[in-house]
């Protein structure tokens, strides 16, 4: 009985120093852009963020997921892998696709640069991620996919 209680209050709560992680796999569909950002926002809420911080995270996640849908999978089928973790006060979110990849990452990150042919995209996706998060890292291989990893310190 005593041991049970210890399990409940102690070990099951997880050690404070350990990172807490969640993983989400979604189909590449524009409808899932909202779902993905809301799930990450709810996960990040355990860091007790301000409304502005939560909005920043939601917008940054929306950019990365929209990029995967439009560019990574070119609006076709595919799976988007989202992982979020908190360690101390730091939130890390990664959005990965197994799509076409980015030939020139530096170019893709330039504000106003877009390969979108509808003319309706602003080319500000990465600029938004960079402005709203503390750190944005992009890894990509043509033909294999792209992974965007973003970090933000919450409640500084």
């Amino acid at each position, binding site marked *: 009985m005593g041991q049970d209680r210890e399990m409940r209050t102690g070990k099951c709560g997880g050690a404070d120093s350990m990172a807490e992680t969640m993983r989400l796999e979604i189909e590449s569909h524009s409808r899932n*852009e909202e779902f993905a950002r809301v799930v990450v926002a709810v996960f990040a809420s355990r860091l007790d963020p301000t409304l502005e911080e939560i909005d920043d995270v939601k*917008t940054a996640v929306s950019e990365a997921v*929209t990029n995967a849908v439009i560019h990574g999978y070119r609006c076709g089928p595919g799976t988007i892998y989202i992982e979020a973790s908190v360690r101390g006060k730091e939130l890390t979110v990664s959005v990965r696709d197994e799509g076409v990849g980015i030939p020139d990452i530096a170019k893709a990150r330039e*504000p106003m640069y877009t390969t979108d042919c509808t003319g*309706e995209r602003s080319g*500000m*996706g990465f600029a938004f991620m960079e402005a709203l998060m503390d750190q944005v890292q992009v890894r990509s291989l043509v033909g294999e996919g792209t992974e965007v990893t973003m970090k933000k310190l919450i409640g500084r």
Partner: protein
Amino acid sequence: MNDTAFLYEARGRVLVIHLPKELDHHNSRSLRYETDLLLEENYISRIVFDFSKTVFMDSTGIGILLNRYKQMQRSGGTVAIYGARAQIARLLSIGGVMKLVDRYDTKEAAIAEGGKK
């Protein structure tokens, strides 16, 4: 009426576009087609965007404003916004469109100012 659709309202030469609650890529897919159609069939010299219901926006909003601005500019027209919350205004500034559009607190002001220019 639902909160994911765009609502269009013609007021003389002014076209008011009421934006949805969540202004993202998914919800904006029909906007271009719909506004192009309205601009073809009506003489519009000013587009006014209503952000008063919008609580979320990503860079999709920048693309929308930028493209309507370019469209209006070609015919000598203007673009204005009203009802933008602090976070939305901040994102519009980051996206560099705040200096291209006029910002007002109310719909009436945003529409009325159009006639002065």
